[in-house]
């Protein structure tokens, strides 16, 4: 058992709207990330993936509010800290965050090296420009980026290169955890591969200890991360290793997500893809009982009455459904048979 880098217990955060309505976008989420491991978070848009990422940083600004739970990074509890303290001592050095449009952070009127200078000087006051350049060059070399990028303006770089530059900058202060929130979904497939390769290099070279990768593309998660967690309507509905979650999903929602994968493999054209009907529920007044009930094919009357707890499925797997593992597998087999005939 390697040591835990990030441990989150029963984290609940909410948004407060203009009309003082509470929206619980992250609802009792617990997760663990070990050293050298990566965790993938999957789910549709509006399921609370990005809110979870923001909540994990401990950096709360209205309308986002912290409610309850614990966030431990390397044994240090950061859940009750003030945003100012978080910015000074946590962001960049303990946790680093890459949003989807990270490349927009670059200032079009300044060179890339200036951007990196700003980052380092915010944390280390007495450092010369020469040292900064040397450090940046070394970092870029480790990550396989050309060093002449440092002296260029953002307009001279392609989208993929800009994104990689910002990601490189975010691992500059050697954070323990890197949270990548859809870092590649605005890019084409080739640039996406370069970004993934760079993230993996950062992992292997010890620049980051662990990674949380958020995306809605499951083939990508299967190839990038060790574990996968599926979120739906603010709750975790399934967690397990990447292989198990992709090839043998337990929760009907996870099964539905797997059914809509499109990859250029032989036999794709003969498969009938099944998208999940409907949209995620509005979290202003979430449904009682199972939140997936109204879109679920295998719904039962008792699904909508009691709230459903996360069930242990053995081997570190867990899922949130009233049906047992065997019942679910049988239901899926029957469904597949019905589709085939």
């Amino acid at each position, binding site marked *: 058992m390697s040591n835990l880098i990030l441990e989150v217990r029963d984290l609940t955060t909410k948004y407060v709207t203009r009309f003082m309505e509470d929206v619980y976008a992250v609802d009792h989420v617990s997760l663990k990330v070990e050293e050298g491991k990566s965790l993938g978070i999957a789910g*549709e848009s509006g399921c609370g993936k990005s809110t979870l990422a923001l909540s994990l940083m401990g950096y709360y600004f209205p309308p986002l509010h912290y409610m309850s739970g614990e966030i431990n990074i390397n044994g240090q509890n950061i859940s009750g800290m003030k945003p100012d303290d978080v910015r000074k001592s946590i962001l960049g050095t303990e946790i680093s965050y890459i949003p989807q449009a990270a490349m927009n952070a670059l200032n079009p009127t300044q060179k890339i090296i200036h951007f990196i200078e700003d980052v380092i000087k915010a944390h280390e006051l007495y450092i010369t420009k020469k040292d900064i350049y040397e450090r940046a060059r070394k970092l870029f070399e480790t990550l396989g980026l050309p060093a002449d990028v440092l002296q260029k303006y953002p307009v001279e770089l392609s989208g993929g290169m800009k994104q990689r530059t910002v990601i490189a900058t975010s691992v500059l202060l050697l954070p323990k955890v890197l949270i990548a929130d859809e870092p590649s979904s605005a890019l084409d*497939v080739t640039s996406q591969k370069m970004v993934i390769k760079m993230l993996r290099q950062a992992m292997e070279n010890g620049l980051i200890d662990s990674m949380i990768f958020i995306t809605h593309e499951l*083939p*990508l998660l299967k190839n990038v991360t060790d574990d996968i967690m599926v979120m739906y309507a603010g709750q975790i509905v399934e967690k397990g290793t990447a292989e198990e979650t992709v090839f043998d999903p337990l929760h009907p929602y996870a099964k539905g*997500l797997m059914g*809509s994968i*499109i*990859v*250029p*493999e032989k036999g794709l054209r003969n498969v009938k893809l099944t998208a999940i009907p409907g949209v995620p529920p509005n979290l202003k007044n979430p449904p009682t009982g199972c939140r997936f009930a109204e879109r679920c094919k295998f719904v039962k009357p008792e699904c909508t009455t009691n709230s459903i707890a996360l069930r242990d499925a053995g081997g570190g797997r867990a899922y949130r459904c009233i049906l047992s593992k065997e019942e679910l597998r049988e239901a899926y087999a029957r469904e597949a048979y019905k589709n085939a005939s």
Partner: protein
Amino acid sequence: MPAEKKPCLSGTALTKVFGFGSQKTVAVDHVDFNFYESEIVSIVGESGSGKTTLAKMLLGLISSTEGEIYFQGKKRDIRTQKKKQEYWRNIQAIFQDPFSSYNIFNKIDSVLLDCIRMRGGGRFSHDKKVELMTEACSFVNLKFAELTNKYPFELSGGQMQRLMIARIFLLKPKILLADEPTSMIDASSRATILDYLMKLRNETGMTTIFITHDIGLAYYVSDSIYIMEHGKFVESGSADKVILYPSQKYTQRLISDVPKIHEEWDLSTV
């Protein structure tokens, strides 16, 4: 697929050059193509390979530097505004960003009402219009009664893109040009959009040109695939031939760039 294939849209030595002198950029470089009737054609390439420039030329939004476009066997003539509008009755487009495709001040049904007016139904009775709109909405599995008093921001990206398809269903053009219609929406609603594109083709027999960078989507949806690299078509043919037996290095690279489920993803190639 009909027994004899008639080309619906074809081009000979189509070229677009931006700038001149030392600043010259050849975006589309002498491409020849034949898009046959009631066929779904995919154009696949990296960003910067000239896919969108080609699309704009096909739509008549920008002029070509060289070469000709033939529409249903005749040379396309869009020199006057009237002829251009006539041409646009035959070709329609769905764009990448559904959020900017709508007028945010107008309600949803105004989008569909405009389409009915364009098809000459401006003087239809109210009931007839509602019937047409309900039919179009039910084609993409939306409920018109729920949409009628909504504004675009109240819909999700997938719903907006489905409504764009409903719009195409009302207009019934000869050609539909879909420029990355699935890249800004969820992976789980992607399959739905592609299924509706195929359903549209099956029911109305329109030629669909599908532009994408993800070769997996192209393989799922299309009958034939054109691979574009630096403004040129490097490989073309039926979808099965191009994906399962690719002959060009560039095609092989595009296929290997997409993360797969049953095969290991080789990261060493970039």
